[in-house]
């Protein structure tokens, strides 16, 4: 035991008086004036620092935007341009579609072969006056071409269709033969 000896109550009282002398260690008025000034400035700094994180992030964003307005605009235009180009058929890796009346033939590539499942041949009636499913034989052999045959894929029917063969035009006489160019005519476009 460190302290074996007991002190009397008088000693304890004297010790208390002794310790309480430390109460007299006090700073002067000049100290408190300086203290108040320093504390005030620290308090103001604390007010600025105590803004919430989202306020600070917002302010930072605005600051950056102001400092780099030109760069931001350029980057935005570039980003828009890249986005627009990437959305085109070529960059998106899509096959271009054609309208039913498109004359430009598109030949299938090897890659497309799997997508072409049993092509359907469609006869387009070039005579607008004729009924779609009726063949008008009145034009005769020497008449101008009356029909156009296109080969279509099943996938594209009926919204768009993909021409995979050279369109051929026939007169009414040809259509009567039933087959031509190795394709069997199974109906007209209007059947779809």
């Amino acid at each position, binding site marked *: 035991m*460190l302290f074996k000896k007991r002190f009397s109550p008088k000693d304890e009282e004297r010790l208390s008086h002794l310790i309480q002398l430390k109460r007299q260690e006090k700073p002067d008025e000049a100290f408190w004036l300086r203290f108040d000034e320093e504390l005030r400035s620290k308090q103001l700094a604390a007010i600025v620092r105590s803004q919430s994180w989202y306020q600070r992030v917002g302010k930072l964003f605005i600051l950056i935007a102001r400092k780099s307005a030109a760069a931001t605009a350029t980057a935005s235009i570039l980003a828009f341009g890249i986005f627009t180009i990437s959305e085109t058929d070529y960059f998106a890796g899509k096959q271009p579609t054609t309208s039913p009346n498109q004359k430009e033939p598109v030949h299938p590539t090897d890659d497309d072969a799997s997508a072409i499942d049993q092509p359907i041949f469609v006869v387009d009636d070039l005579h607008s006056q004729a009924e779609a499913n009726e063949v008008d034989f009145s034009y005769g052999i020497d008449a101008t071409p009356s029909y156009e045959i296109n080969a279509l894929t099943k996938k594209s029917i009926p919204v768009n269709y993909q021409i995979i063969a050279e369109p051929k035009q026939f007169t009414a006489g040809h259509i009567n033969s039933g087959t031509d160019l190795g394709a069997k005519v199974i109906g007209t476009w209007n059947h779809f």
Partner: protein
Amino acid sequence: MSIIKTITKPLVSSPERRLEADEDLYIVRKIQSGDVDAFDSLIFKYRERVYSVIYNLTSNREDASDLTQETFIKAFQSINRFKGKSSFFTWLYRISLNTSLSHLRKNKLRRFFSFEKMVEEDHTEGFIENLRTESDSDKAALMTELQERLNDAFQKLSIKHRTVITLFEIDGLSHKEIADIVGASIGTVRSRLYYAKQFLQGELKDYIR
């Protein structure tokens, strides 16, 4: 268990403190509702007491000044989190203690003292005069010597014991109030106080007998 970790229990105030706490709470509510300047009145009211506690824990006037300011800044920054479960006084003391203890632990190896000037007060004049007669020394020299011996003895105490003796003997708080502030039981406070007094009696025996 460290004091820092245990200073979380709510305070049950004495009647005197409760009245004071009500006044403080009114000011705190004003600050919380946007009247930032009202905090100045709390600074003015408690700055000397907070400074005194920190000074007696550190025995360094520059550190005490900085830590007192830090205490008030921390209190100001977290005033919106003060819910009134304890009195503002206790809450502020806890902040000041935690700030001081953190500082003392960080600077264990870098310790030097710088004392405030002792201002003689009327009620201690008789006590000082007795000591001077017994030691047959110059009053100013005795005061300087006493201050050094007192601070030296204080710094030899552990932080826990120094905290308790400072709050009890110098700040004049009750056992209950100290227990609430340091987050310990009243029994623990009494025990620490007893040990601290015994130690100081041994260190300062030349001035006691």
